[in-house]
């Protein structure tokens, strides 16, 4: 039977740009949330975010000129992918069949030039008609917009950059299921490998919505925290006073390959992907199903594929950690807790759960990949990272959310949840590699 293992990982996050730095900071329960510097957000309802810092994408590619000024999401992807590729050892592997090395990303769109777009729309506004004068709009757009920047808006552009960098010619997909995208990408990349359609898949996500229109959109949805205090205290999943999510940005990338291929080239498996579940709420665009139907189905499907009976009560639950979607919105954290109870039954209180969004914010399409890497780091180090800012627990949320302090534990199997706006839900189960 084909098995799929992880042989490389990398991330670019608000907490840092390499595996060790980010992991150590998460184990210390540090927050990366700070005042937004990318644009002047001082008048916005939300003025803080988790922003990637000290990152120069040109240090992560062979030749920057090959990449034609990538948008920031592509820059992050290149940074994370280089770490993963190097860790996997594929960079020095000469026998790679490039037609059997593919990519599956959950990448968001490029960064919109809000300054230029606001100028174009307002200057072409026809007061009498109450709409844009399309002829004037075209004139201003031609003069003001960077043509290549608009091409880079397409969500499949990070895919091209990664293919260009590593000569990946195999199956290639980009999905964009909002906050669930990169978990879905990793799950479907695993499926591509299990089908025998590739030997290696570079999989993960990348996204930034840390621009004026992105913050505007989420502010209007009232989904973002507008916490009026220390930004580092703003993201507080599972707290009684949680008030919305905090925007983050970044990328997480993993090299997945069939165990057979990994062993044949002498690679070291870091973990094994054993389960993937996908579902749709099919309920409402703006609300989660009140009983957690969709998230529970995603978890059940993933656990079933992994051959794990999670419900039967036992002193040693078969899953030792859940990386929660844990956005810090009232609705998500409540519904996710209900769904975990549906999936884990009487075992639910015994499974530690945390949300790293408390420390780095919500990386949107990239969130799931970074959270899966967190799971694998937990397996490798036997450490569970905390949910910080959990000082005022919500009495309605009665599971073990690893409040504020990291915890040592034997960790052999983890589950990672991602739920997208609109009701697309995805769950992965990852295990310690056991030959």
């Amino acid at each position, binding site marked *: 039977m*084909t098995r*799929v293992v992880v042989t490389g990982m990398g991330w670019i996050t608000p907490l840092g740009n390499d595996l060790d730095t980010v992991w150590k900071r998460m184990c210390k329960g540090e927050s990366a949330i700070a005042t937004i510097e990318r*644009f002047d957000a001082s008048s916005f309802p939300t003025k803080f975010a988790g922003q990637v810092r000290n990152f120069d994408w040109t240090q992560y590619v062979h030749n920057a000129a090959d990449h034609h000024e990538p948008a920031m999401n592509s820059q992050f992807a290149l940074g994370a992918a280089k770490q993963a590729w190097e860790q996997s050892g594929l960079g020095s592997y000469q026998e790679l069949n490039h037609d059997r090395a593919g990519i599956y990303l959950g990448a968001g769109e490029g960064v919109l030039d809000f300054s230029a777009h606001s100028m174009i729309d307002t200057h072409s506004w026809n007061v009498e008609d*109450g709409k844009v004068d399309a*002829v004037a709009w075209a004139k201003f757009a031609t003069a003001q917009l960077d043509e290549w920047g608009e091409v880079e808006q397409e969500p*499949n552009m990070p895919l091209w950059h990664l293919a260009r960098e590593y000569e990946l010619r195999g199956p290639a997909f980009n999905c964009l299921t909002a906050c669930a995208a990169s978990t879905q990408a990793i799950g479907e990349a695993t499926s591509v490998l299990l089908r025998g359609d590739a030997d290696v898949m570079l999989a993960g996500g990348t996204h930034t919505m840390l621009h004026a229109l992105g913050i505007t959109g989420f502010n209007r949805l009232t989904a973002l925290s507008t916490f009026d205090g220390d930004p580092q205290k703003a993201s507080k999943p599972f707290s009684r006073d949680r008030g919305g999510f905090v925007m983050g940005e970044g990328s997480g990338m993993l090299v997945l390959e069939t165990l057979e291929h990994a062993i044949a080239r002498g690679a070291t498996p870091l973990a094994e992907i054993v389960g993937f579940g996908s579902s749709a709420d099919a309920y409402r*665009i703006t609300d989660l199903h009140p009983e957690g139907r969709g998230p529970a189905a995603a978890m059940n499907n993933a656990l079933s594929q992994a051959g794990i009976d999670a419900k039967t009560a036992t002193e040693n639950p078969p899953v030792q950690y859940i990386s929660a979607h844990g956005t810090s919105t009232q609705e998500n954290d409540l519904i996710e807790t209900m769904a975990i109870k549906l999936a884990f039954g009487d075992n639910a209180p015994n499974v530690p759960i945390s949300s790293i969004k408390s420390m780095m914010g919500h990386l949107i399409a990239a969130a799931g990949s970074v959270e899966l890497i967190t799971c694998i780091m937990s397996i490798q180090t036997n450490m569970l990272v905390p949910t910080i800012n959990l000082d005022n627990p919500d009495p309605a949320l009665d599971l073990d959310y690893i409040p504020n302090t990291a915890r040592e534990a034997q960790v052999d199997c983890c589950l990672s949840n991602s739920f997208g706006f*609109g009701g697309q839900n995805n769950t992965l189960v990852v295990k310690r590699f056991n030959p």
Partner: protein
Amino acid sequence: MSQSDNNKVVISGVGVISALGVGIDPLWEAMLEGQTGLKRIERFDPSGFASQVAGELAEDEFKVRKIVPKSHRKATKVMCRDTELAVGAAALAVENAGITTAGTSDDPPTIDPNRVGCHIGAGLISADVNELGAALVTSKKEDGSFDLEHWGSEGMQNLTPLWLLKYLPNMLACHVTIVHDCRGPSNTITCCEASSGLSIAESRRVIQRGDADACLSGGVEDRVNPLALYRQHCTNRLTETDGSGDMTQVVRPFAEDANGTVIGEGGGILFIESEISCNKRGGSPWCTIEGIGCRQSFTDTPLDADPHAIESAIGKAMSEAQCTPNDIDLIVPLGSGIRKIDSVELEGLTAIFGEALQNIPTITTIPFTGNCMAGNGAICIGVAAKAINEQTIPARLGSESTIGIDAAKCCAIKTSIKRVLVVTPSEGGQCVALILGRVGT
């Protein structure tokens, strides 16, 4: 994770919306007659753009409120045009498949909703510049500059609260899953022209691995708005025309004098189903999906195509279909009329078929519908399925002659069609090839 035994997957319902109408039949009839849906853009004044023609469906020909259940009518307010068209195409596919869902009646669903997935390709949905502009203009200073501080404190309040939800690409699939109560695996593929084919590849993979019995699958995109048109202008792929000439000659696939493509709106949703499920419910499959191959191009820019990717994707699809080039009766290429893309497509196809390529007829849809990007592949696949069913190749538009491939202007012909190759290279370098087979062959 284990892989269940493969089983056959069929297309058992077809829903297409294009510039030529709502449904596969008006498109097919127009294609038989050689009538194009391309014309000068009417939705806005395109005079500021070099390319002023599109495949545009008149707004009064399709009203989404008329086809959603009463319970979902309020949600139509947060649909962009792409989502409206996807919901419309899905309704057509469900009707054509002859199944009952929560979106069609109160009767029990034909298929367990937990076993129905949804994979819909979507594009980079461009904001409605009128909607956004109306809000932005409230933060315009007297000197004409934009006041970001005012926008943050007051201006953004002029944007409807759910504005963002209109423009998330996954909303096409989300609305469709809600209307039809599809609770199985759901995804949104965003790979430009390859989106539809890759979505169908994923639906087939999901069905074959046992996670669903059926999926609504395909892709839809609307490029007929100023921002989307501008973004295509940035790729230098559009033909320059003000719409005053012969519209049947605007897009000339594989012609030496081809000078670009035009945008369009539309796409298709197909009902993809395991043959076992289709037989069990007494469904009537249009065709079998015999093989799929997908590959990534390795190119100097994301706007180039790669003949090796096309050749390799077709090779993989043929391998799955257990067929040879001699078994292909019809090819539906992208045929965009973008000369450098057409020439690479030709190179990739020639690598597979050799000189025999000149003897295999093709269907090219873009001269009829415009390039609907994420929806384009689904239109191609819907037309290919129709061609198999009708044993007919519709007319072609474009140039009077092409070299190396049978893609010149011609009338419709009746012929025997057992297998069709649909191949789609995309902006960004993804390439997908599907082989569709006549049921029973």
